């Protein structure tokens, strides 16, 4: 058992869980917007659900506490891209509502 004054792995695990929670809130908000948008909206909603599930699958190792070295670093860009994807898929929905 190595000495770890900062509880670093635990803090990191909790940070991953907070981020997963934030991503879920964003997904719910985006789905609410998409599901008022007819057939095209439903299609975008399906894509959003895919991004959300993909991100959760990617980060589940980190949220369970497996740190860098044991899990590929690909997790980080994947989760960030899922967040970016949710935002970019929402842009046409916002614009369509306005014009």
């Amino acid at each position, binding site marked *: 058992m190595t000495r770890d004054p900062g509880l670093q792995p635990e*803090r990191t695990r909790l940070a991953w869980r907070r981020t997963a929670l934030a991503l879920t809130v964003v997904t719910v908000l985006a789905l609410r917007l998409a599901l008022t948008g007819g057939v095209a909206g439903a299609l975008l909603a399906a894509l959003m659900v895919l991004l959300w599930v993909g991100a959760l699958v990617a980060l589940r190792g980190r949220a369970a506490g497996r*740190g860098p070295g044991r899990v590929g670093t*690909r997790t980080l860009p994947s989760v960030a891209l899922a967040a970016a994807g949710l*935002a*970019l898929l929402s842009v046409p929905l916002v614009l369509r*509502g306005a014009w």
Partner: protein
Amino acid sequence: MPDVKRIIGTVREVIRRWFDPSEVKRVGATPDYRFSLANERTFLAWLRTGLALIAGGLAAAQFLPPLPLRHLREVIAVALLLLGTTVAIRAVDHWARTERAIRLGEELPVSRFPAVLALLVALGALLLVVAVLVKGFGVR
């Protein structure tokens, strides 16, 4: 067009660096794991900042009443969505460059991005304060 080629090459190199886990591990020495974890938490904090901006944009689009200026609501929403996207992508780049610097024992990368983001958010808030005041005191 050698310039375009070079730019495309640089972009590909940067994206490859984000996604190739072995690339990061190939350079330098494995640092104290606590440094890697701290770098990862900083990335997550930035990602949540981006997610908060995105949530703000989605909330503006859905919960704000129509504003006195035409399409102001949609402009606010799209601006927040794009700003959040930028923050999330930038977080990956900054994390990868920091990890590299830690492994090579170099200076950590410096960035103007936090200052630019703070100025943008402050400017946006000020503009909205002006909009609220103009509306409140009825400049008709």
